[in-house]
C-alpha cells in the first residue's frame, strides 16, 4: 500500500510540471494582457509595467525563472492586486473555500448517500422514486439558480438565515453549503443507487440474505462498502470540481474564497495568479484522486488483498 502511494506521489511530479508548462504558455497566447483596460495605456506606460513585472524578458527566461521561484515556494506577485503575493492570496482564500467545499460534500453525501441506499433497497417502488426524485432536483438547479432561490425563500421571505457572508453572522454558512452540495447530491445518489444494486445482486449478498440476516445488517456490514465504490471514485474529481465550481456560490454569497480569485485571475489575465492557483489546484487534484483511489481500493476486498501482497 505504501509503495503504491509513494509511487503515485512520485508520478505527481511530472504531472504538475506538465500542468505548469502548458498553463504558462497557454495564458500568454490568450488574447489580452494583464494591463489592458477600458482606458488603454500608452505604449510607454505599458512597457514600464511589463518591465516592473519582468514581462519584458524572453519568454523562456521568464519560464525558467518562474520554475526557480516555484522551487522556493514563491508564486510571485499578483498583477491585478499590486502589493499582494499570490501565496498570500491563496492563503487567504483557500481555507474558506476548503471549509465551504467540505460542508458541501457532507451535505451531498448525507442527502445523496442516504437517498441512493434507501432507493436501492426496493428498486422501482415508491421508496425508490421519491428519494431519487428529491435528490435529482439538485442537478436541475445549477447553483446560479438554487443559490438565489434559497436566499429568496430562507433569507428574505422567511428571514431565517443571512443572505450573504461567511463566518460574519451566525448561520451564514448554511445556504452556501447547501447550494454547492445540492448538485453533487444527485450524482452521489445516482451512483450510490447503481453501485448498491450491483452489490446487492452479488452472490455473497444473496447468501447473506439467505442466511436470514436482517436487512440493515446486510446493508451496513456487507454491501455499503462495495456499493459505494463508484461514489468514492467520483469523490476525488468532485472535490476538485467543488473548489473550481465554488466560484458561483462564492460570488452569490459574497464569500472571500479561492474560487473567486481563480476565476477572476483568468478574466484579468493575472498570469502569476492563474499559474499559482492552477499549480495549487493541480496538487490538490492529484492528492484527492490518489485519496479516492486508495479509498476505493481499501473498500474493494479483492483489490485490497492485492495491495497487501505487494
Amino acid at each position, binding site marked *: 500500500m505504501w509503495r503504491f502511494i509513494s509511487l503515485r506521489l512520485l508520478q505527481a511530479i511530472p504531472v504538475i510540471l506538465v500542468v505548469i508548462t502548458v498553463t504558462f504558455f497557454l495564458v500568454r497566447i490568450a488574447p489580452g494582457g494583464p494591463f489592458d483596460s477600458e482606458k488603454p495605456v500608452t505604449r510607454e506606460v505599458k512597457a514600464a509595467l511589463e518591465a516592473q513585472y519582468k514581462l519584458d524578458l524572453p519568454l523562456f527566461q521568464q519560464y525558467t525563472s518562474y520554475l526557480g521561484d516555484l522551487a522556493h515556494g514563491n508564486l510571485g506577485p499578483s498583477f491585478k492586486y499590486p502589493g499582494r503575493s499570490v501565496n498570500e492570496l491563496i492563503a487567504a482564500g483557500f481555507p474558506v473555500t476548503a471549509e465551504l467545499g467540505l460542508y458541501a460534500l457532507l451535505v451531498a453525501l448525507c442527502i445523496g448517500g442516504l437517498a441512493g441506499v434507501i432507493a436501492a433497497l426496493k428498486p422501482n417502488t415508491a421508496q425508490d422514486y421519491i428519494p431519487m426524485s428529491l435528490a435529482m432536483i439538485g442537478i436541475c438547479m445549477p447553483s446560479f439558480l438554487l443559490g438565489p432561490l434559497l436566499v429568496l425563500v430562507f433569507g428574505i421571505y422567511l428571514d431565517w438565515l443571512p443572505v450573504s457572508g461567511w463566518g460574519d453572522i451566525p448561520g451564514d454558512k448554511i445556504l452556501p453549503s447547501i447550494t454547492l452540495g445540492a448538485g453533487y447530491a444527485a450524482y452521489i445518489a445516482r451512483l450510490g443507487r447503481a453501485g448498491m444494486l450491483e452489490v446487492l445482486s452479488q452472490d455473497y449478498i444473496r447468501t447473506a440474505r439467505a442466511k436470514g440476516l436482517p436487512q440493515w445488517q446486510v446493508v451496513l456490514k456487507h454491501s455499503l462498502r462495495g456499493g459505494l465504490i463508484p461514489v468514492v471514485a467520483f469523490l476525488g474529481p468532485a472535490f476538485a470540481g467543488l473548489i473550481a465550481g465554488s466560484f458561483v456560490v462564492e460570488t452569490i454569497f459574497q464569500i472571500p474564497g479561492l474560487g473567486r480569485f481563480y476565476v477572476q485571475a483568468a478574466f484579468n489575465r493575472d498570469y502569476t495568479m492563474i499559474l499559482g492557483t492552477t499549480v495549487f489546484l*493541480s496538487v490538490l487534484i492529484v492528492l484527492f484522486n490518489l485519496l479516492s483511489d486508495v479509498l476505493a481500493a481499501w473498500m474493494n476486498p479483492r483489490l485490497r488483498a492485492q495491495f497487501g501482497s505487494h
Partner: protein
Amino acid sequence: MTTQTINDIDQAEQGTSLWKDAWRRLRKNHLAVFGLILLVLFIVIALLTPWIAPYSYQAQDLELGASPPSAAHWLGTDIFGRDLLTQIMYGGRISLAVGFVATAVALLIGVTWGAIAGYVGGRADAVMMRLVDILYALPFMIFIVLLTVVFGRNMLLLFLAIGAVEWLTMARIMRGQVQSLRQQEFVEAAISLGLSPTTLIRRHLVPNALGPIIVYTTLTIPNVMLLEAFLSFLGLGIQPPQTSWGLLISYGAESMEEFPWLLIFPGLALTLTLFSLNFLGDGLRDALDVRGAKD
C-alpha cells in the same frame, strides 16, 4: 486502438442476444417506457420546430415586454415581447443537440480510455490516468477563450470542448469499475480460457460496468446543457437571437422575482428531460443487469 474498440462495441450490439433480452425487459418497465416516449416526443418537437412553432423566434414586441401566460402566448413572453413557447422550442433544438452529441463524445472517449487503462493496468494505466489528472488541472476557462479566438465560433467546437472536459470523470469511473471487475472470478476464468483482451473488454467488462456508466451519462446530459450556457457566456457557445434552455434559465434566474414564468417553463423543460433520461437510464441499467433480472 480507439476506433478499433468502438467498432468492437458496435459489433457487440449486433451480435449478442443481451441487447434483445434487455429490450424485452425494458418494455415491461413502465416508467422507463414513459421516459423514452417523452424523450422521443421532445426530439420530434425539436425537429419539427421550424414548422410548428407558434411565432417567429426573432419577432419582438418591445412595448408588450414580459407578459405572463395568456391565450395568445401560452407560456407568456420575455422582456422583448417574444413568445416564450417558441423560444423554448427553438432552445430545445440546441440544447438537445448539445446534450446528446457532447455527451456521446465524452462517453466514447471516457469509456474507451477508462476501460483500457483499467484492463491493461501497470505502467500504461499510470500514464493514461496521469494524463487525465493533467487535463483536470488545466485552467478550463483559458482553454475555452483560446479555442474561440483560434477557431472562431463554431458548433462543432462547442461539442468538442464540452466532450473534452466531460470525459475525464467518465474515464475514472470506468477504470474503477473495470479494475474491480478484473479481479472477479468470471473474468479470471475467461482469461484462463484464452479470450482475447478486446473480446474480454467488450463481452464482459463493458457490459458489466454499464450500470454506473449509464447513470453517469444520464446525469451528464443535463449538466452539459447547462455548461453550454457558461460557454456562451465566454463567447464560445451560441449567439442571440439563437437560444438554448441553459441560456433561457440563466436569463430567467436574473428576474425570478419579477417574471417567474421566464424561469419556470425553461426549467421545467430541462427537468422533464432529466427525469425521463433518468427513468430510462435506470430502466436500461436494470434491463441490462443479467443477475438482477433473475430475481
